[in-house]
């Protein structure tokens, strides 16, 4: 397994050189792991010595930028990292992408397809990497998948059972950015709004701009609702990149020492 093979896109801008640190590398403490439900059959949780760190947030919330900075920071401190994200499995990523292009799958089908993609990465990347003591950085996790489905009226209990296979992360950050700001960032980045990120399949509005704002605030509401159950850290994503990064680093430091 190479450490950066699964990183999807190159960094848009070179990050500032990492602060020089001494030669002594801190060995993270092992904390007990658990699954949300019954988990994956046959996994010995006691052997998972790495840490799973999740960054959640809408497109344009700064997820990839923050993950890239975390990788730099962790590697500078001597920790091996692996990155995972949605639609990156060997098994179904390609097919899932094709299916989405045509918007031909019904809701439950799409949901199970995403779950397959997630399970494949969980079993073939996340768990083996954690077993080898890697820091696994997840660009989105089950929460995005659950929120997207909940916004579309799917049963929460059904989703909880489905994702009972998921491992509870050591830290989850939700980069919270107001829909009005997200729309500006999406235009700056892509010059157009994405069909799915605008929730166009929901028929909220035929106007993509309105639909985007509506959809993103529905997503935000569901995330905040999930926050009470799953207890992730809500991070104010309106601030400067470095300011946010320092906040994440501080939280992760406590995770490593836990």
């Amino acid at each position, binding site marked *: 397994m190479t450490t950066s093979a699964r990183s999807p896109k190159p960094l848009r801008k070179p990050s500032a050189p990492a602060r020089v640190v001494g030669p002594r590398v801190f060995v993270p403490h092992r904390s007990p792991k658990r699954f949300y439900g019954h988990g994956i059959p046959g996994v010995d949780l006691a052997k998972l010595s790495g840490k799973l760190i999740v960054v959640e947030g809408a497109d344009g919330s700064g997820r990839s930028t923050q993950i890239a900075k975390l990788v730099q920071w962790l590697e500078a401190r001597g920790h091996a990292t692996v990155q995972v994200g949605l639609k990156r499995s060997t098994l179904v990523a390609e097919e899932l992408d094709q299916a989405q292009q045509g918007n031909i799958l019904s809701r439950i*089908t799409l949901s199970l397809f995403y779950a397959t993609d997630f399970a494949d990465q969980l079993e073939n990347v996340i768990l083996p990497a954690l077993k080898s003591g890697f820091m696994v950085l997840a660009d989105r996790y089950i929460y995005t998948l659950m929120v997207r489905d909940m916004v579309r009226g799917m049963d929460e209990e059904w989703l909880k059972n489905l994702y009972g296979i998921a491992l509870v992360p050591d830290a989850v950050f939700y980069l919270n950015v107001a829909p009005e700001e997200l729309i500006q960032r999406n235009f700056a980045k892509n010059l157009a709004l994405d069909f799915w990120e605008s929730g166009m399949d929901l028929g909220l509005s035929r106007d993509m701009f309105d639909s985007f704002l509506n959809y993103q605030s529905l997503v935000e509401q569901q995330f905040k609702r999930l926050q009470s159950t799953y207890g992730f850290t809500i991070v104010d994503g309106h601030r400067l990149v470095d300011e946010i990064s320092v906040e994440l680093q501080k939280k992760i430091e406590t995770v490593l020492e836990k």
Partner: protein
Amino acid sequence: MKTFAELDFPGRMVAVEGLDGSGKSTQIYLLKRWLELQGAKVFFSEWNSSTLVKDATSKGKKRELLTPTTFSLIHATDFADRYERQLVPLLRAGYLVLCDRYIFTAFARDTVRGCLPEWVRGNYSFAALPDLVFFFNAKLEVSLQRILDGRPELKYFEAGMDLNLSHDPYESFRIFQGRLLEQYLAMSTEFKFLVIDANQAVETQQSLVRQLVASRIDLSRFSNLKH
């Protein structure tokens, strides 16, 4: 979980389940012919026949990439696609839908592979139950012989090779099928399977199947013929 009738669908579903070689496909084919000849609005649907997810499934199978969890999920995805796009619309349109295998195949198979039964059932809980389920109960040796006599090339997952039961595909297949049969029999009461003794003559079984269908489903409602 409710049946399509209990959910007030105008259509009805009849499913057949059983081991490979139990003769269930022959029986459902003969049932279909009988219904068609009466001019009934019939649709026949096979497990694993949806085109969309097929590519991913066959890729996974070929490369032996699947674990019990992903095997279960990819088949659930495939089923959901067929359920949402084909079965539900047909049942809404008042068809008599015949299914060669339904969710019970997944329940049996995934449980044998080590998935938690409650998890698998939960994942499939979006699907309504058939109005009738026939289970073709043949002696294990008889089913095995029907399949193995032809010395077929058994596929990796079909033979249950992923379970490490035996290095010999044929031996692995035997053990695997035996375990599936146990799972089917354990589900039989819970899901009110109509158990047909599949060791009897084809005609004897078919006669029983047709009588049961005629007595449980008002076939006149499905007639296409103008009276």
